[in-house]
Every structure is written in structure tokens, then in C-alpha cells.
């Protein structure tokens, strides 16, 4: 099989979930109760809106992730030819890593790696 057939897997997965959902929404018995479709909050009616501006401390981590994830993508092609690339590839990657390592060190020292 060639890579176009990935679409097949996509379709099978969609059919699997969709079929089960349709089955499950038609066949099982239903009962109605106004409390049932309340969002669960330990049995207490929700106070205030759920979708507020939510303060999560991972903004910095997302930025760091972007940097390092792009780096990982760069690393893959290098990793493939490392065996044949010889000393030149090694030296180049050392330089690359030094820069990145300094970046990480900078973030570390700047206390960006602490979740607030």
C-alpha cells in the first residue's frame, strides 16, 4: 500500500466513531430530566460563566515549545545523515546545540521555567 491509502484509515476511523455514535443516539432508551443535562459540578449549580478569561501559566512554555519543536524538526534530517555526514555534521550540530542550549539556559536563569 502506498501513502495515499492513509485516507482509508481516516475514513475507517470516522465510520467507526460515527457509526457508534449514530447507533448510540438511536437505540438506547432515553429519559428526560432537567438536572441531567446540567454540567457536573459536584451537584451544585454552576456559579458564573465557565468560559472566562482563564489565567494559565503556559504561555511561556508554548513559546519555548515552538522554539524547541522547530528544532526537533530540523534535527530529524540531520539525524538521518549523521552516520554518513561524518565530522562536519557533528561539528555543525554542536554549534546548533550550543546556541539552543544557551537559549534554554537563558530561559532557566530568567525563571521562565517556573509555572506561575
Amino acid at each position, binding site marked *: *500500500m502506498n*501513502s495515499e*491509502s*492513509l485516507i*482509508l*484509515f*481516516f*475514513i*475507517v*476511523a*470516522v465510520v*467507526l*466513531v460515527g457509526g*457508534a*455514535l449514530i*447507533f*448510540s*443516539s438511536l*437505540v*438506547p*432508551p*432515553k*429519559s428526560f430530566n432537567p438536572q441531567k*443535562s*446540567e*454540567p*457536573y*459540578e*459536584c451537584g451544585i449549580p*454552576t456559579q458564573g460563566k*465557565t*468560559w472566562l478569561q*482563564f489565567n*494559565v*501559566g*503556559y504561555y511561556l*512554555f*508554548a513559546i*519555548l*515549545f515552538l522554539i*524547541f*519543536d522547530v528544532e*526537533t524538526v530540523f*534535527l*530529524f534530517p540531520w*539525524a*538521518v545523515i*549523521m*552516520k*554518513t555526514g*561524518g565530522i562536519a555534521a*557533528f561539528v555543525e*550540530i*554542536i554549534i546548533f*546545540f550550543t546556541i*539552543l542550549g544557551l537559549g*534554554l539556559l537563558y530561559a*532557566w536563569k530568567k525563571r521562565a*521555567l517556573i*509555572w506561575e
Partner: protein
Amino acid sequence: MAFDIYDFTSFNQTIDKALYDNLPPILAMLTEMVIIGVVFLLFYALVGLFLVYAERKVCAFIQNRVGPNRVGPYGIFQTFADFIKLLMKELIPINKADKILFNLAPFIVIIASFMAIAAIPFGKGLHAIDLNVGIFYVMAVSSLGVVGILLAGWSSNNKYSLIGAMRSGAQIVSYELSVGLSMVTMVILAGSMQLSEIVEAQRNGWFIFTGHVPAFIAFVIFLIASTAETNRGPFDLAEAESELTAGFHTEYSGIKFAFFFLAEYMNMFIVASIAATIFWGGWMPLHIPGWEGFNIVMDYIPPFFWYMGKTLVVIFLMMWFKWTFPRLRIDQLLKLEWKYLLPINLFNIILMALIVLMGWHF
């Protein structure tokens, strides 16, 4: 070597040829697709059911319990019964939930895990698609699942779910890196991203043995990071049952919940099979240099069993983690990644590059 008798390449080609010879090309292709689809669907469902059962048994034994033992001998049909029960449960609509996203989320988690399975080599020639960037593809596709988790948490209109989803976002964003980098380490050693070639490269010994210390470190990091990526074990912050009741899938009922559950186990299977492929030689049998008789016996065990065996061992390790450790807190999770795993990983890659450069590996 002796295990080459179990080569499925010719078998596949025979079927392929037979179909195309006897049917018009379009029909042949369709038949082929249906066969593969059905086979994989069955495989997917069976692995899912088995893993759920295995998890329950493993945790039961660890906890001095018997585990499921009522439905069928040793309770082996328990998960079947549970599946039917979940299928027959009402899907409860949630007030003010974002209906489209709420229903989309289970699709995404299942699609992500199902598509990842496509590229996994279960034996020589026994894989659906042998991509030349296989390892990259699996990593990319399996990490799509987090989108489903984020959507599920966000769309539920539930505060616990939202917090769970936010945690999950931070978590996956971080651990994606470590998974990738430890894979890079092994790609250096293998010199290829094609999964079948990586396995072939381990013909003379599994990477975990031939790769010296860096391979071992990479394996440990991969194990930790992939446990985190699948939202399991000590890293199950997104569900964090004692904190967020059930986290991102609090509001999901019936079969929708079952899909999240299934996807979790399938993700576990996928990362375990990747670990088995790139560290433990995939379907390659265990060879101990010098023990010729032993090696020959090992060769006659079909590669599929080798493959599943290794995968299950890794899965067992992950279950063992889960049932031993307390959960980490979100900031500790990030600390572990950014202050321990990432620097060690970077260092490890250089070490591995050095070893490959000097030809120190076996």
C-alpha cells in the same frame, strides 16, 4: 537468518496480484481497502479490549485483588460486557455545551490513534503503509490526539473539564519535545526514519544493547515522556480523578466516553510499539551472541509474537508506573520536562552523535 521464513512481503504481493489479475483495477483496489480496513478495525478493537482487560488485571494483582472474574473464565469477557453496556447507554446532552466541538472531540482522538497504527510494522512486510518518514509520521499523528482532549475539555461547559484541558495542553506541548528528541537519538543510530529500515538495522542486535548508554537513556526518557504524552500514570493530570473528578471527559457519557477510554489505551499501544520498534528491535527475535541453539529456537518464534511481546512488556511498564506513583503537580510536570528531560536529552543526542561518529556502537 532463520526468521526470514516469516517474510510477509511475498504473501502480500500474492494477494495483491491475485486481486488485480481477477478483478478490474478499481474493484481490486476497493476490495483491498476493505480487507485492510476490516482487518485493522478488528485489530484495533481487539487490542483495545484486551488492553483494558490487561490493565484491570495488572492493577488488580498489584493491589492484592483478583480483578474481573465474573464474565467468562477469568473475566476475559468483562471488557466486552462493558463495551456493550457503554454502547447501550444514553448519550446525555449538556446544557450550553458547544455541540459541534463536543461531538467532534471523540472523532479526533480516535482518528489520531487509528491513523498512527497504519504505519506500525508488525512483522517483516506486515504493515499497512511503510512510509519513508514513518517515525516522524507516527509522532505527528499521535500527537493530534491532544487537540481532541482540548476540544473535549473546552466544549463541555464544565469547569473541571476546562482546567483539565488546559493542563493537558501544557503537558503535551512539553512532552512532545522529549518524545521527539529521544526518537532523534535513535534515528542517528539507525540512519533512517523508515520504521522497517530501523528494524532491519537492528538485525545484529537491538539498539538498546548496541547503542551503549545513550540508547538506554533515550529509552528511559522516551518511556517517561510517552507515558506523559498518553495522559497516563503519574502524569494523568488532565483527568486527575481526585482533583478534577474526571477532567476533560467529565461530561462524556456512554460510547463517547468509551472512545476516549479506547483512545487512551490505543495511544499507549502506539507509543509502546514505537518503543519496541526503535529500541527493542521491533519484530527481531532476541539473540545472545554465542548461544547458537538458543538463537535458533528464538528465530522460530514468529515475528508478530516478538513484536506483541515487546509491546506488551513496555505497556506493562507503563501500567506499573501508573499503579505505583502518586500524580505530579502541573508545575512539577513542567519542571521535570524542562529542567531534567530536555537538557539530558540534548546532551544525550550529542553523546549518541559522538558514538556514531567514532563508530563505538556495536
